[in-house]
């Protein structure tokens, strides 16, 4: 089965600033893919490249079987795109906007539209510019879901929304999930953890990983090693061991390539006098924090090395 979205070394530079660097990802059909990362990581740029709003500097992306630069016109009747900072036709009423959008979409479902309007409790005769942020987002959702898109792309859709509105929107999305592929970006891990099937982590323009949530959860473990006597951490720890630290006789780290007994054996072999090895499953938030902190430490170390190198030169 062809992935709904696939990128190959997707790169975007604005002048000398590299915003995205050689991104490779694949979003299978039917997936709910969450692209997460801190603010400024490049998530919005990534989505704009996928939607042909921006053009890549290098690399390529395919969406619904088309090169991203071919996305225009009719193909958007199969794609829904909602962004937190999208400029809507503010002077239109909700009714006016829905009436205007309807003829663009051959598969527009009037019944679904009515259902969404009821579900979101939209004030139909109010202009968009007079709607609250939450209501505006609901109106955008209603106008984007009513034509049963094959792909729903959401850029930080829940940012700044109250929990009630957020839950309503997520619920409406999940109702569509069986018939569509959802690709959304967020910097809030908690909001996507409950329903995303796949996740990608973007930091400073680099994709640190992109995989299925279940595999990710299986791959990461918080390992606590209890030793007979205090030990100094060796420098040559495996690269898959993140954030290693030691307190008295206890060594803690995050194992990013956990493979059950094999990994535990590896731990026992690495340290002398191991009394106990505990491997705990990690919540998504902890996994991301570990990855993010490690990434930043590595970046700082690389920058320091570069500065030192220049100083010596």
């Amino acid at each position, binding site marked *: 089965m062809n992935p709904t979205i696939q990128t190959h070394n997707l790169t975007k530079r604005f002048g000398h600033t590299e915003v995205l660097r050689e991104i490779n990802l694949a979003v299978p059909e039917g997936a709910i893919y969450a692209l997460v990362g801190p603010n400024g990581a490049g998530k919005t740029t990534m989505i*704009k490249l996928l*939607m042909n*709003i*921006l053009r890549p500097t290098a690399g390529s992306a395919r969406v619904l079987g088309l090169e991203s630069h071919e996305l*225009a*016109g*009719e*193909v*958007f*009747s199969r*794609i829904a*795109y909602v*962004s937190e*900072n*999208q*400029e*809507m*036709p503010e*002077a*239109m009423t909700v009714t*006016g906007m829905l009436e*205007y*959008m309807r*003829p*663009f*979409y051959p598969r527009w479902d009037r019944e679904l539209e009515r259902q969404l309007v009821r579900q979101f409790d939209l004030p139909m005769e109010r202009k968009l510019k007079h709607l609250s942020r939450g209501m505006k987002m609901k109106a*955008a959702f209603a106008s984007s879901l009513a034509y049963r898109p094959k792909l729903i*792309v959401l850029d930080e859709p829940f940012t700044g929304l109250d929990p009630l509105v957020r839950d309503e929107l997520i619920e409406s999305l999940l109702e569509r999930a069986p018939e569509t592929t959802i690709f959304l970006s967020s910097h809030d891990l908690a909001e996507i953890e409950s329903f995303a099937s796949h996740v990608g982590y973007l930091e400073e323009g680099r994709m640190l990983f992109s995989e299925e949530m279940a595999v990710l959860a299986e791959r990461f473990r918080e390992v606590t090693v209890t030793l007979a006597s205090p030990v100094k951490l060796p420098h040559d720890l495996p690269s898959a061991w993140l954030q290693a630290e030691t307190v008295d006789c206890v060594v803690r780290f995050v194992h990013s390539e956990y493979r059950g007994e094999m990994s535990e054996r590896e731990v026992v072999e690495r340290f002398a006098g191991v009394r106990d090895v505990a491997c705990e499953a990690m919540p998504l938030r902890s996994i991301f924090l570990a990855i993010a902190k490690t990434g930043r430490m590595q970046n700082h170390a690389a920058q320091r090395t570069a500065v030192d190198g220049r100083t010596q030169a």
Partner: protein
Amino acid sequence: MRQVLNIFRKDTRQYWIEIALSVVIAIAFVLMYPSQWKVTHDQNADQHALWFTALLILLLITSWWLLIARVILAESLVGDRQFWLTRPYEWKSLLAAKATFLAVWIGVPYLVTQAYLLAEAGFHPLSYVPGLLYGLRCVFLVFVLPVFCVAAVTSNFGRLVLAMLGCFVLFTGFMFLAFGLPHGYMTSTPYPNALLYPLLFAGCAVALTVQYATRRTWLTRGLLMGLSVLLALTVFVYRMQSLVDRAYPQPSAGSAAPLIIRSIPTVAHPVEARTWDKEDYIDLPVQYSGVADGTAVFGDDMKFTITAADGSRWSSPWQAMQERILPGSQYAEIHMMISPEIYDRFKQRPVTLQVTFAVRRYQSDTVTRVPFPMHETAIAGLGICAWKYEGPAILNCRAALHETALMHVAVQWSTANCTELRTLANTIAETDDWIEPYGPEFSLVSVWDRSMMFGYGAGDARGRVCEGNPMTVTQYHLVNRTQSDMTLTNIQLPVEVHPT
């Protein structure tokens, strides 16, 4: 098509206030404009009406620009946050919808109001459909398309206004450089600029297509800048000196000279030199003659060659002349512009001065004799005319869509009161005026309105033009453009150069 109509309906609903504003101004304009030709005999009222219609024209154009800005920016092509970018808009449909909107809400009201104006002026609009469409085409090329292009490469109304102001400053600067600088090397334009409109249309069409198809804004901006440069170049090229030589060829051997020009310096009218704005001017009194009856000659440009006895020589570029020369003898003064440095080289010694004139020769066609009309009367070639004011009598004529050709209008005036019997005895003389085409190819207004003024002396000698006084209207057509020479040998140019 469905998408085009959908976008068009949305825009019409959304911008009905702007549409209504533009239509109301257009209606106000066509209701006011006829006051320009209506006989009121009140110069003040007419002046106010003139100002008001001028203001309405400005408002009308501004309302068009506002409409264009609003409708194009509704689906702005610049930026990455517009909702429509990820909706199933076909670029061709979007462009067609915007063009349809402008055609329906600017073009149709323009056509309707201009047809109304024609009818109000006494012309049947259906007889002038091609002319009305030509006017519409010109309005779109001059007032709509450029703003459409600028709106297509700007992201919001504020930036559009700034861009328009920038364009206005550049345009004014260019016009000042091209036409406003006080230099004498300005020639008349022998050819209409045949490239201007096609280039403007093609350039704008390409830029809009590229922008709507690809949204590569910087590329489109580059195209538009290139287009502006090209248009400016055509303006300069069409004023090039070499074009004057091509447009006004030397007369063929054996052909009769269109006129005779003699230099006639006298004690009362000597050759004089003056300085103005860092240039010297030599004023040469001349006499024109030899213009055949039934013809008229228009001097457009002239150039000078000074040759000294030692063989040193200076030739000027073509300089503007703008003189109307009629049958009979006519005295005038021509002005040679020369830089002070060059003039210093020649003024101390006798020189030969050759003057070459670039002239247009006209032949009279039809001569119509009609009684001077006090009330609206259709006169062949002139249009519909009526007497407007007493004193220096003004005859106001209006024509449909196009300017009249070159015309000479002569009226006899008399010392008799208009109630008295007018006889040859009290017919004093004939006064005349000319109507020369301005040259522009179109006007925003479908009715061309021209006035002729006839002077009558003053005080006791003041005469009158009364209804029924004989009036002769002579229509001319262009025969050819040619050159004519005058050579002055062994003349001494003035040593003293006076300030102007």
